[in-house]
């Protein structure tokens, strides 16, 4: 039977050059290559398109040849009431989604973890996770049916003698629908990582706490939560970094909103889509809008990482 041979160098690995080290680990580097190429081709190469934010797009010249116009697109942006409204809505919806949604999967995972009947736990977990796999196109159809004049919500309200509601066309109620449906769709899926973290808690800790007379709630507060707090911190940083993307929730809002709620529902993503493809605005202007969003996302990520590290948890960089 043949065995693989480890390459033998004249000098030790510690003393070898970078090239030598790369050669030594060449197969690992080869395995890494697809990932590097993927990032290069799909993430870094298109970045030259960002220059369009400082140009007026010319179809003949393309992205590289289009004329530079400095910060004109950004100046137009701050004067555009549509952008101001979309920017404000994005921040509000993103922040509220994070605030309201973030604790829900943690609570759900702890509650599921406390269930002693395994089969029932699996049933609940499946029920909560299932909506994640339904697209927003289908989901929006369901939500519109539920909330329409003849929908189940209004039927229940009419049984109790209340007035019918139309939250999808009422500015003051629309965002509530966005928050609740986001939780409905995502809480099961988002709780999986916490369930994995909970599975890693040493049972001896819980047994010892029980012997010491700790109740369920005390065990949750003093053992379960501290054990998953690190995971929650990492996820919080990641969520903050993606806050404006999640908040914009293009698929969700695009499929649920209508012109009567633009004032509270139009986010940067829906604004970009509508103004680019319906109105036909300059690609440079839209790139500038997208760039602002990305820069804010980056700043939020750095701030969240810094804050979490200051609070004693491990950051992501």
């Amino acid at each position, binding site marked *: 039977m043949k065995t693989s041979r480890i390459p033998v160098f004249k000098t030790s690995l510690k003393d070898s050059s970078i090239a030598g080290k790369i050669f030594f680990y060449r197969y690992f580097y080869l395995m890494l290559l697809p990932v590097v190429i993927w990032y290069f*081709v799909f993430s870094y190469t298109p970045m030259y398109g960002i220059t369009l934010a400082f140009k007026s797009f010319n*179809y*003949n010249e393309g992205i590289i040849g289009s004329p530079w116009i400095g910060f004109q697109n950004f100046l137009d942006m701050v004067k555009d009431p*549509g952008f101001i409204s979309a920017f404000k809505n994005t921040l509000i919806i993103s922040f509220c989604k994070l605030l309201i949604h973030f604790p829900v999967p943690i609570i759900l995972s702890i509650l599921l973890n406390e269930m002693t009947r395994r089969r029932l736990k699996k049933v609940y977990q499946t029920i909560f996770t299932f909506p994640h796999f339904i697209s927003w196109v289908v989901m929006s159809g369901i939500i*519109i049916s539920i909330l*329409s004049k003849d929908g189940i919500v209004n039927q229940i309200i009419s049984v109790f003698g209340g007035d019918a509601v*139309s939250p999808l066309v009422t500015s003051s109620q629309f965002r509530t629908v966005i928050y609740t449906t986001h939780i409905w769709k995502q809480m099961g899926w988002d709780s999986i990582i916490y369930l994995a973290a909970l599975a890693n808690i040493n049972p001896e800790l819980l047994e010892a706490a029980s012997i010491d007379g700790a109740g369920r709630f005390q065990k949750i507060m003093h053992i379960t939560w501290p054990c998953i707090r690190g995971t929650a911190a990492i996820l919080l940083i990641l969520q903050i970094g993606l806050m404006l993307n999640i908040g914009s929730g293009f698929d969700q809002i695009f499929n649920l909103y209508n012109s*009567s709620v633009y004032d509270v529902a139009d986010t940067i993503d829906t604004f970009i889509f509508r103004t680019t493809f319906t109105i*036909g*605005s300059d690609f440079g202007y839209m790139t500038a809008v997208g760039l602002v969003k990305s820069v804010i996302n980056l700043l939020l990520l750095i701030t969240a990482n810094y804050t979490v590290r200051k609070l004693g948890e491990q950051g992501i960089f």
Partner: protein
Amino acid sequence: MGKIKGLVSSLLLLFILVAIVGCGGNKRATEDGHEQTSNLNEKEGEKSKENPFAEAMELSIAVWDIESSLSDTENDEIYKMITEKFNISIKPLGITWDDYAQKIQMWAASNQLPDIFSIDAVGSQYYRKWVTQGIVKALPEDLSKYPYLKEYLNTDDIMGLKENGKLFAIPRKTWESLKYNSLDRVIAYRWDWAKAAGIEKEPETWEEFSALLKAVMEKNPEGTQPVGLTAGNVKLIGGFFWLYSNPAATSDGSGNDFKWIKEDGKFIPAVFSKGALSALNNMKDMNKQGLIDPDIGLIKGDQGYDKFASGKAVAILHAGGFLNSYKKILKERWSKIYPDNQFMDSVKVLKPLKSVDGKRYHPVFKTYWSESYFSGKISEQKMDRILSLYDFLVSKEGRELVWYGIKDADYGKSGETIEIIETEPLYDKYPSLGLFQTLAEWNLTDNYDMNNPAIADPDVRKAGVEYIDWVKQNTVTPEFDIRLTYMSTPTKDKFTVFDHDDLLNVLLSKKSTEEAWEQIIESYKAKGLDKMIEEVNLKAKELGIE
């Protein structure tokens, strides 16, 4: 083990390289194709002097659902006849009603536009860029070589599209006159229910129509608790409600076609006319009385048609005229729900109601919808071939072929009267008709002719013909100046008016009509409304438009 690792890694690397090379393949093939075409052009230039179509050509075309139209080209006699006549082959590039605007803009941005493509771009910002940056090819100024096409294009609203004396698109003509726009926004209502509710006369005024809706809703004839007026699409509402007092404000929903009227000595977009408020108040009053579907803002897909056909709405505002009354209501829904019910005995189409000034107006859009554009990169020879094809499609011979099929096999002629021989739908026999009937024009005018079987149900066809005859005789076209709609000024080029959005906002707002409308006007002012009006008036004065 090491060898296996090495082998796997090498294979992986090879796969990546192949994938990268493969990704670039399409573009190269296209570029080669262009080179080959241009080489062929040179070589066969001599031949073409004798036979203008001697040189074989491939035309890439992006038209809605073209792929299904060209699904059976081998057995499609009409496809063969047309492609052989012009010595062309067609490369279909699929676009759908959901993605066409995005796809075409992406193709334009990435320099991949097909030779011919369809989109409703007139008046948009990207249309102006396409024209000024040479992305789309202009039609020759002298069109005498294409007499039918020349005649086809010779209407005021098409000629008004010229930029520096050149046309950059062939509009897809839909109607022979603006009067036919009344068919773009029709209201079908339950006449059987109205009679059951004690209504004996077709409504002629807004009050009578409101009374009809109210009476039927209260009577609830089939116990379905119907809503009043629903819509096939919420974007259509302007085409109905503006007719109360501000008919020139009707718009096709593109945001770019807003019309201009003169008020107090100044041109303004009709939407912002003094007459707007009365129309908005009338709409709001109808809503307060519960006569408008509370879910009208949420309607998606064909939900409106479902509601109406299933008896959950008294009336429906829909597009597509009697063709859709037949197809979307009668054929697809009504015949299944009420198999024993005579459709036209139960449903009537509302004739345009009397406006506040006592006249009956019809909505106004354009005589065409959407346009054919030609890539700025195509050669003169190819452009000539394309225009020859279009010339044929709008000629009498071409129209008869694409609308009635092959002479003596599918139809016969007795003098000028067409006699249908083939009773089965022609689309099944010649799928390419889906392309050729709509490539150059929509030509829906001919559907309102008792000899034309496009509206398959004779009762619906008869009602359609009577309706349009009545509209021609009894309605007035709102006054506006189309030249100002097409005029280009720096602010106007970026300005859009989505009146249906504004109407919906007023309709659903908890504020008073005046307050809600004032807020909307302020938002337009923030976008440069006043500046645009100033620019347009200045330019109109320069051009002598009074």
